[in-house]
């Protein structure tokens, strides 16, 4: 052995497992913001298209596959109020954000190599925007201004506008924050910047399940979405890219999707995205009406425990109806996540880092908020019984964790 470089060799014929994987536990899912189950329409579309031919092939099976892709493109375009020509399919929200941020900055750089493009975004963005923004700035590909949020997680449009310079190539502000559910007025921002000819990108990944997102009316030049946050499968997303917005591709290859996103169309996943999004948009008003009382009950039940403060905007119209975010005193995040998981309630603390630890929250830090974060997020399958059970468990677990008397059931 010794200190030689370690190459992992996995035995090919794995012996039988020493223990069967744990059976599916009855879990109350209050982590829809992390991933919400695919809707039946999405599952059916995925199933139907899994054996599709290559959608770029010239033959008729290829044409049949392509029809599924193009129908999905129209579905996404219709859901977002944009032209089908503006929809580019991606592997998910992270790729969608990366394509918009890096692609637009690099295109601006190519257009005028003498000037360094300027990028404006906020400190509460998802890492899918923040990390490429910082990476571009570190490389010297752009200069970067990060606008801090208000304490409630919302972004002040005036502060963003004040950060814009003549060199600003892109302004990226999320439609709603994934942790706090704080909603931003992206339309007002894009309208104000239209006069100055500055394109706006918005990460709408978290907003789309419950908020009306009309990218066309907002006037944004780019917008990112992710399938598994709205009732479509994991592994598919899309970027809206206005046709007049120059974008340098991230991946070069066969030139699919107008050359902006090469790679064989994931026909099944794309079809499922179209079907899932269509179903989600149709259900959205009813979903909001279903979730509002559930969220209120969760918030009220949590408030009844001492030492719990709700985060995010006070104004219900400025927060996602799906999100209840609180901060707790007297309990640490790892213990809380562990105890709730053991009790069969799936929740989120901070954002998970690459190793899987609760890594604290850059969003709370940006808002200047203290306390152990707990995000409960609802989705299209949420029921009254979920809320009943969650409140029962929280009312039991939190006081006992604080008293040091908690033991797993």
């Amino acid at each position: 052995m010794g200190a030689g470089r370690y190459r992992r060799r996995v035995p090919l014929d794995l012996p039988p497992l020493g223990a069967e994987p744990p059976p599916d536990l009855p879990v109350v899912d209050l982590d829809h913001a992390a991933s919400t189950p695919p809707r039946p329409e999405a599952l059916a579309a995925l199933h139907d298209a899994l054996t599709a031919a290559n959608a770029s092939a010239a033959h008729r099976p290829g044409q049949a596959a392509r029809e599924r892709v193009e129908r999905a493109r129209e579905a996404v375009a219709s859901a977002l109020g944009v032209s089908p020509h503006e929809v580019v399919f991606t592997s998910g929200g992270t790729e969608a954000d990366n394509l918009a941020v890096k692609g637009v900055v690099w295109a601006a750089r190519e257009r005028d190599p003498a000037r360094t493009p300027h990028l404006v975004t906020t400190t509460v963005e998802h890492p899918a925007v923040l990390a490429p923004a910082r990476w571009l700035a570190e490389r010297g590909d752009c200069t970067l201004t990060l606008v801090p949020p208000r304490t409630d997680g919302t972004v002040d449009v005036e502060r963003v506008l004040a950060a814009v310079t003549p060199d600003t190539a892109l302004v990226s502000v999320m439609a709603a924050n994934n942790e706090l559910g704080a909603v931003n007025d992206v339309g007002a921002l894009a309208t104000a910047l239209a006069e100055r000819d500055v394109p706006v990108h918005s990460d709408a990944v978290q907003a789309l399940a419950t908020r009306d997102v009309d990218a066309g009316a907002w006037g944004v030049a780019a917008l990112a979405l992710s399938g598994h946050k709205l009732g479509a499968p994991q592994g598919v997303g899309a970027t809206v890219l206005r046709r007049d917005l120059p974008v340098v591709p991230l991946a070069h290859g066969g030139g699919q999707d107008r050359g902006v996103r090469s790679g064989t169309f994931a026909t099944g996943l794309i079809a499922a995205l179209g079907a899932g999004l269509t179903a989600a948009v149709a259900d959205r008003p009813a979903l909001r009406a279903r979730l509002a009382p559930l969220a209120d009950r969760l918030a009220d039940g949590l408030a009844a425990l001492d030492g719990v403060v709700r985060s995010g905007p006070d104004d219900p119209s400025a927060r996602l109806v799906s999100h209840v975010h609180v901060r707790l005193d007297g309990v640490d995040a790892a213990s809380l996540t562990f105890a709730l998981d053991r009790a069969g309630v799936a929740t989120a603390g901070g954002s998970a880092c690459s190793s899987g630890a609760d890594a604290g929250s850059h969003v709370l830090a940006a808002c200047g908020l203290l306390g152990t974060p707990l995000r409960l997020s609802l989705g299209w399958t949420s029921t009254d019984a979920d809320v009943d059970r969650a409140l029962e468990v929280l009312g039991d677990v939190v006081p006992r964790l604080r008293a040091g008397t908690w033991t797993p059931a």
Partner: protein
Amino acid sequence: MSRVLVAMSGGVDSAVAAALLVDAGHDVTGVHLKLAEVADADQVPGHGCCTLDDAQDARRAAQVLGVPFYVWDLTEAFRTHVQEPFAARYAAGRTPNPCVDCNEQVKYAALLERAVGLGFDALATGHHAALRVGAGHPDAGQPVRTPHPAATLVRGADAAKDQSYVLSVATPPQLARTLLPIGELTKGEVRRLATERGLRVAAKPDSYDVCFVPDGDTAGYLAGHLDAAPGDIVDLDGQVLGEHDGVWRYTVGQRRNLGLRPTATHHRRFVVDLDPTSRTVVVGPRDALACGWFEVDAPSWAVTPPPADGDRVRVQIRAHAPAVVATLHRVGTGWRATLDVPLHGVALGQVAAVYDLGDRTCLGGGRITAAQRPAGLPLAASAR
């Protein structure tokens, strides 16, 4: 059956420890500790214990064993109690042992506390050290398989891999909440069990380095964390032989990288003392390293009752050094170990682990706070 939290580093030892706990019928939960923050670019696969590969290996082992698995971020406790003192102690001319600090201040403090708060009966690790029921108990001498109030720490079955040294600071109440499932096995048996269980870490190399210095370059790590503090390298007569840029680059007993040219009388010189106040590194012949006694101000005893004045014991001052015979005496608030045969290269800050004369049971351990130095040194005779 007990509720056991097993710390899974991603290595083969802790994976097999978890497997044995499952086999014994315990209610097992795996936890991987995020301890050191090592930038992705600085991670060396197979080195250190906090790389993403290690987290993945630990997670996969837990999956194969069918136990729930969590990653807990203890970076703050690790930074405060291990990483920062590591640099600070080197700057003070001491030679710290970060693994002992981690066991004492993180695993047996923050982690055990949290585990107990979450209803666990015991914390298990994959250390090559064993627990046996202590004397005076009906089961005396039996291996500890469920948490036992009279658990005592003994050397692991694999003498070459024994890690009781780094656990020597555990107290009896902590040992009563500890399980060391692989302590009765040799490394070869551990690897064989891992292979049988289909654990992909079965052939993963052991880690030898300080986990937050994955490339093994301690001096380089310290240079990045401490300011240069130049001073003289002198011989036993106080004659200046050269210069250095920080006493933290040196450890008592060190022979290499002194940057001194051989002279007619001395071609092998060792660091024999460090004085951070005057920034002096004293070098001398090997004979000058001979140390007949050392003292530990505040040892942590692992047995009840603790050793008494005049007890004959064995002491071990490095992870894999032999334990040598000594007599313990109380000195002020601490203890002095007077060695039958002098040891060479006793550095302040090093952990001295105390064993019974039979060299089997660990009685405790602590950091060396004073040691005999050669008469006539330009510095104080003992670096108290």
